């Protein structure tokens, strides 16, 4: 707040230009001259500052365009190809997919039957396909058990997306609980936590040569 200029000092035109630049950049909608004037310190002339800004951005990768009565910053139309066909919508991963992914990350390598056992419901083909397509999981070794079922493991792309260095770094149940991610209701009949979920590798290494 202390940066706000005094009531009577009109900022120099170059400063007004900076202000308009920041406003146009940050605004989600085009701004009319009136809207700009309302935000600028008293005595500012957005029309003049805007004219300066338009000249500054002429021929740049970003340009000042007029939208009806208002003004906005847009990428230069001739550079559209840089962004072209890259406009995508972001969608939240479905709950089924998130859960399936979590189970694979924590229990890998894991078969579809095991995923279903943990989730308590059937895993639709589409869910696994979606995760495969996103390249967050891949097919691992076949399990040496009857039917030789396929197993799933998570990929580098998964680690990359979720900012993990390895799947072993995922917090275990006690750590999830300590972080507040798990309700602390004690399971009926048992007093202990099943903690080894996340780190299958952990303790067994104790005994290896």
């Amino acid at each position, binding site marked *: 707040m202390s940066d706000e200029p005094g009531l009577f000092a009109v900022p120099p035109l170059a400063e007004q230009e900076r202000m308009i630049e*920041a406003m146009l*950049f*940050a*605004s*989600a*909608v085009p701004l009319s001259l009136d809207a700009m004037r309302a935000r600028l310190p008293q005595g500012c002339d957005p029309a003049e500052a805007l004219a300066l800004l338009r000249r500054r951005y002429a021929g740049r990768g970003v340009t000042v365009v007029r939208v009806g009565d208002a003004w*906005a*910053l847009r*990428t230069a139309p001739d550079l559209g190809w840089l*962004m072209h*066909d*890259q*406009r*995508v*919508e*972001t*969608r*939240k*991963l479905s709950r089924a*997919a*998130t*859960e399936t*992914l*979590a*189970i694979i*990350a*924590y229990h890998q390598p894991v078969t579809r039957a095991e995923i279903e056992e*943990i989730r*308590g419901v059937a895993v639709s083909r589409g869910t696994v396909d979606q995760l495969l397509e*996103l390249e967050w999981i891949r097919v691992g070794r076949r399990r*040496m*058990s009857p039917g030789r079922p396929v197993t799933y493991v998570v990929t580098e792309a998964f680690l990359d*997306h*979720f900012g*993990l260095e390895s799947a072993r770094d*995922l*917090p275990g*149940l006690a750590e*999830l*609980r300590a*972080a507040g*991610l*798990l*309700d602390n*209701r*004690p*399971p*009926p*009949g*048992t007093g202990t936590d*099943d903690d*080894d*979920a996340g780190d*299958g590798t952990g303790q*067994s*290494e*104790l*005994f*290896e*040569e």
Partner: protein
Amino acid sequence: MPDPQAADALVIDIDGFEGPLDVLLTLSRTQKVDLRRISVLQLAEQYLEFVERARALRIELAADYLVMAAWLAYLKSRLLLPPDPQDPDGSAEDLAAHLAFQLERLQAMREAAARLMARPRKGLDFFERGAPEAIARARTTRYDATLYDLLRAYARLRTRDDFRPYAFDRRDIYPIEAALERLRARLGDTPDWTALVRFLPEGWRGGAPARKRSAVASTFAATLELAKQGQLELQQADTFAPLRVRPRP
């Protein structure tokens, strides 16, 4: 004038403190010196007095406040006695210096937090573009999920699990009795230190990790039992090093 009042306020506002170190840090300000030159002896006395006052006012203090009081009482006595070079806890001066270090570090982190929060912040002091255009892979829908989503999903699943009827799957459980029997039978032929993993039964060493874990756990429990009975010795060279077993000579 304001001094006794301040001390009282300290006692009454016990809920406002975040643990004993926080109390000590607040008390240390009354000494009006650099934390590096603080008198820990005086601080210990102030803290003990604080605890006494809380007791007198019948204010329930959490256990960690009392643990700190006990420790400071001990430290105080050590500081007043002539030094004992044999003491396994280290010299009283070292203990006092460590406490001063903890206070200084906490104070430093508080100041760091304040400086951090006072920085210009995105969405408050500086802004990203108001109408961003997505840049990502061509023509696909980008699915978004964060690590937080993932952890929550797993936590949710596992919590639900807790409420499922308990069903014990014995297929992949190696009983301790079997491990004991196997270990007793094999111990005689074991000349010297042998890795515990060697005692795992056939068919339990590879394959499903849960199966192997069960065998390892049961065999380990069995070694503990036999060690207790004086039949074998256990050895581990280092943290996470392999456990080794030999018959007791």
